[in-house]
């Protein structure tokens, strides 16, 4: 019987993974190609078919305008925010994009919002999991950078929904990593998780004890990661090419993509070698070649990785701890493989970081642990509890353009605050509230989260209504607001205008539109269901072979059935729906007489007064095939 498989998903800037709890330990579910990592790359082929993952990577180089990568950098952001990104990444905005509209990116001739693109990656992971389990997967835990703000989290949840997943929880990436790390219940102490991924940096400090994972402080930079290192090297290469060869290839998408590939390979090589070579074919038969020493690379890196120091120090300060009080530092994210990064972490925390866990997989594994906990827990997770925090202060804009902080950063979530409002004008029925996130004093320096319009306030003289507004940050780190006018007891209707997000209606429409892709899903569902039916029949047949009716068949009949049995067993695990269907039908045909015999004996047994149960044949079964519908343990 298929139980609800809840999976853990790491939706990364560069790579994504899906994992589940396999007995005592979490395990990554590989794709059809047998690989654990699914590059977060989406492309459209010539026929506008969606390609995701490794297969999409070659499109980045061959037809870069038909592919997109690192879309996580755009989640929950507006056009104004991404001006800098646009300079460094080949994102192409939709031509008809209006001001204040949700971002749309061009892939080929089509446009997609970042949540839709992320949904395509999630869908791929979902399929991988379904293929693995041979059953539908509809529930997941998805990880997000700890420093993600409300809009970025909401966008991630939207992506899940568009992909057909019920997102049970968003978990912060460093917290997830700590779960994978601390799965051994004896883990006890203060742990710092340093997570430098493709596009984001997080530092979280946690207290582990008795299975409780309590985040004490968290900080980071959602605009900092391996991509920035790559871009630095790409810029140098482009300058080199222009200077030495007189070629300006900045606008040549294919060449830039090739440079990027070479740069990434060199970067990775430099983690274990003292020098690496960059070699790129250029138009006109020319070629760019350059050798980079690790020394030179580290000098280039320094300003980028130095940007991680500030957040680390702030997190320590907020936690009220000194580096020496940290028991263990855990490294997460591909970029932590760089020796210079490890050195920086070691210097900062005055200890050798823990590097036993695979920095690419640890977050997904932790998400799988959390998925297990949410599903009810198992022997190994039943004592575990996650207490996370909100990374940014929540504030309201008040008179004078100032932010009034109502929930402070690093408050354990769920967290709430209550504010009271009244009206300025007689008969006023609406109250507008502007909610922000951030640490700055002035509203304009903070991140606008949303404008809430409270409607339906009963008309009264100015100053009389007493509107109680409850702000609640839930376990996902996402804000909910409710309001009630106290004198009348009336719930206010709240109109939400998210500053950087999709409305519910937009998400619904995308869900419907995504039925384009449902074709592929449907096909796979057919296979899964046929496979299940095959298994049911084969099991029933195995049982039937032990019955008296089996003995009543001629040896010829028995041999024929065996052949059909083997034939079905051979195709049922494959992907060919037709083949499975045909084999099922053939076996059904071939066992008709056997079924009749079993039915006869069941009937005569019943007439002798024995319970139907004893014969192992289910009551009230559908007409046609007793063997197929028989119960079995």
């Amino acid at each position, binding site marked *: 019987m298929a139980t609800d498989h809840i999976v853990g998903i790491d939706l990364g800037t560069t790579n994504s993974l899906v994992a589940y709890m396999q007995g005592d330990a979490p395990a990554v579910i590989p794709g059809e190609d047998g690989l654990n990592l699914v590059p977060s790359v989406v492309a459209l082929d010539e026929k506008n078919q969606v390609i995701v993952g490794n297969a999409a990577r070659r499109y980045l180089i061959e037809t870069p305008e038909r592919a997109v990568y690192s879309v996580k950098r755009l989640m929950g952001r507006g056009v104004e925010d991404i001006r800098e990104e646009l300079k460094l990444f080949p994102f192409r905005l939709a031509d008809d994009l209006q001001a204040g509209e949700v971002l749309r990116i061009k892939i080929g001739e089509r446009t997609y919002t970042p949540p839709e693109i992320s949904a395509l990656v999630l869908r791929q992971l979902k399929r991988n999991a379904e293929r693995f389990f041979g059953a539908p997967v509809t529930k997941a835990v998805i990880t997000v950078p700890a420093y993600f703000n409300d809009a970025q989290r909401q966008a991630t949840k939207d992506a899940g929904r568009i992909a057909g997943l019920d997102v049970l929880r968003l978990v912060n990436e460093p917290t997830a990593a700590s779960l994978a790390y601390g799965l051994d219940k004896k883990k006890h102490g203060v742990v710092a998780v340093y997570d430098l991924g493709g596009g984001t940096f997080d530092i979280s400090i946690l207290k582990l004890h008795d299975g409780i994972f309590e985040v004490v402080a968290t900080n980071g930079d959602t605009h900092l990661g391996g991509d920035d290192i790559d871009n630095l090297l790409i810029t140098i290469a482009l300058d080199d090419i222009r200077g030495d060869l007189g070629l300006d290839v900045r606008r040549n998408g294919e060449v830039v993509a090739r440079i990027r590939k070479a740069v990434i390979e060199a970067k990775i090589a430099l983690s274990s070698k003292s020098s690496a070579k960059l070699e790129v074919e250029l138009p006109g038969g020319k070629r760019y070649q350059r050798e980079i020493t690790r020394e030179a690379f580290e000098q280039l890196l320094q300003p980028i990785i130095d940007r991680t120091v500030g957040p680390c120090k702030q997190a320590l300060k907020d936690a009220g701890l000194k580096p020496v009080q940290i028991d263990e530092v855990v490294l997460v994210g591909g970029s932590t493989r760089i020796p210079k990064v490890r050195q920086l972490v070691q210097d900062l925390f005055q200890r050798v970081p823990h590097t036993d866990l695979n920095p690419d997989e640890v977050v997904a594994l932790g998400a799988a642990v959390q998925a297990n906990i*949410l599903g009810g827990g198992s022997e190994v997770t039943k004592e575990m509890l996650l207490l996370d925090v909100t990374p940014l202060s929540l504030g309201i804009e008040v008179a004078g353009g100032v932010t009034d902080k109502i929930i402070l950063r690093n408050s354990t979530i*769920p967290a*709430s605050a209550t504010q009271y409002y009244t009206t300025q004008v007689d008969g006023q029925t609406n109250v507008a509230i502007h909610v922000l996130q951030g640490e700055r004093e002035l509203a304009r320096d903070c991140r606008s989260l949303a404008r809430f319009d409270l409607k339906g306030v009963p008309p009264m003289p100015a100053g009389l209504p007493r509107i109680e507004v409850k702000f609640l940050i839930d376990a996902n780190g996402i804000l909910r607001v409710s309001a*009630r006018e106290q004198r009348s007891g009336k719930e206010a209707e709240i109109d939400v205008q998210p500053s950087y997000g999709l409305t519910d209606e937009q998400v619904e429409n995308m869900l419907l539109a995504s039925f384009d892709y449902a074709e592929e899903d449907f096909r796979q569902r057919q296979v899964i269901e046929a496979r299940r039916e095959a298994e049911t029949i084969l099991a029933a047949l195995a049982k039937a072979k032990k019955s008296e009716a089996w003995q009543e068949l001629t040896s010829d009949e028995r041999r024929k059935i065996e052949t059909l049995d083997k034939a079905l067993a051979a195709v049922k695990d494959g992907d060919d729906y037709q083949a499975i269907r045909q084999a099922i039908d053939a076996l059904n045909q071939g066992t008709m007489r056997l079924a009749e015999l079993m039915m006869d004996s069941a009937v005569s047994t019943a007439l002798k007064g024995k319970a139907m149960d004893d014969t192992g044949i289910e009551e009230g079964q559908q007409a046609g095939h007793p063997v197929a519908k028989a119960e079995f343990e």
Partner: protein
Amino acid sequence: MTGAGYASAPNFVRRPDMPNAESKSSLIMPGEATSSCWSCGTMRTMHFCCACGKVQPAVPVDYFTFFGFSRKLDLDTSVLEKEFYALSRRLHPDVFAQSETQERAWSLEQSSMLNDAYRTLKDPVKRTEYLLRLEGVELEEQSKQATEKARATGELKKQVVPADLLEEVFELNMHLEELRMQKKLGEDDPAMLEEIGKAKLSLEEKYDALFNELKSEWRKWDKAVDSGTEKERLAIRDTMVDVLNRRNYIRNLVRDVNEALEST
């Protein structure tokens, strides 16, 4: 993001008539049943039904009552912490991920109250300020209206200088003014800086001493809760207000001094 995330809210929140619902509920003793369990009908206690164990809607009680403590200030924070973890294990939304919508909503409400309560009671000053608010007092510094008025008019918020500090504050302000003048002229006066440094140290000592004074008031308060008269409690309450106000004043002053020194 949907609007009223609390579709079920009207059913369970008791509408408070007073600005702070909490102040009325000292009538609810820790552990006392408040109404019947929605699931099995048994009379329920604070967070869970004592018979069937199902989570219950949050009741707007004060933070002390939430933890099952009496309104005493000399709290053993290790006991508080233990209770916090124990309640977290049972109330956290993760525990209810597979439960009914209603239970999920209640666990969300309960655990946010739990976290807010813990955050407040854990910190000694927050705890004291919270209790004073329950007792109907607004600390001078915290008076929101004063802050807003100051913002609106652009004036500095008036803070009453504690009597015993008058002389010290006067001298310090003079030194700071001289310092600013000198800086404008580009001059340096190490002797002045030393004076200011000493003054700051003295203030910091007073700051620490005030904390100890606060703690001794706690003990008086706690005794008075059990066996004192209304009059006695009021007196202690007013003393605590005074201690906190002086302490806040010094804190702000030290902050101003630091700012002035840093801009050197």
